[in-house]
């Protein structure tokens, strides 16, 4: 099970959308993923396998955290392109 935390400013809208899309994509590709949303500040205290967010939040994370960048919080095609190769890689580990 890959543990993912999706991040946006207040943890209500965008990060939830992104978590839903990632869970959908993972399910469709037979990868076990648990993606949950968080606001940026709360996320900093968490230790998931991977954080996923957009560029403007990604660059605020310390270098020690593993962060993947997506181009959109909601576009199925773009999220799949940005995240699926990484999920497949993590799934192998």
């Amino acid at each position: 099970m890959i543990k993912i935390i999706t991040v946006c400013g207040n943890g209500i809208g965008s990060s939830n959308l992104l978590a839903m899309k990632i869970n959908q994509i993972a399910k469709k590709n037979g990868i076990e993923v648990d993606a949950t949303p968080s606001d940026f500040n709360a996320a900093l205290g968490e230790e998931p396998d991977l954080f996923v967010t957009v560029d403007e939040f990604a660059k605020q994370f310390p270098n020690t955290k593993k962060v993947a960048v997506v181009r959109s919080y909601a576009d199925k095609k773009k999220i799949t392109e940005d995240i699926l190769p990484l999920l497949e890689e993590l799934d192998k580990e």
Partner: protein
Amino acid sequence: MDENGKMYLSEEHLEFRPSVTDWQEAITVAAQPLLTDQIIEPKYISAMIENVLKFGDYMVLVPKVAMPHARPESGALKTGFSILKLDEPVVFGESQEVYLIICLATNDNQAHLAMLQKISALFDEEEKVDALLKTASKREFITLSEEFIHEEEEDDD
């Protein structure tokens, strides 16, 4: 709103306008139905505007679509959403042209997830957004929205 497969979006929660002067006005106009139905307090509108200023323009979720929202404690009394469609785009942030503004309110951090999942079916592909923007009447917009929501639900099973 009805969980049992009836129309999810109502004409009362949908507004068509040729244009607005700026993104602040877009949010204010889009949120009016939520105010009328006492889903939000007036201060929730200011909170959405502040959120856009504070967090930048990431509320433009996909090209042409913005989803302004704020935290429950900022004046959300219930859970609901309303949509404004513009003929002429309004600029959010530095240069993002937005035609569709979806105001979201929730008084509970969990209660809105089912709603969010349905709404996301309206804009998770660029082709869907373009099709919605071409609709000429509220009825047509709603019918197409319901189709997208229905497809998404089947996709999820």
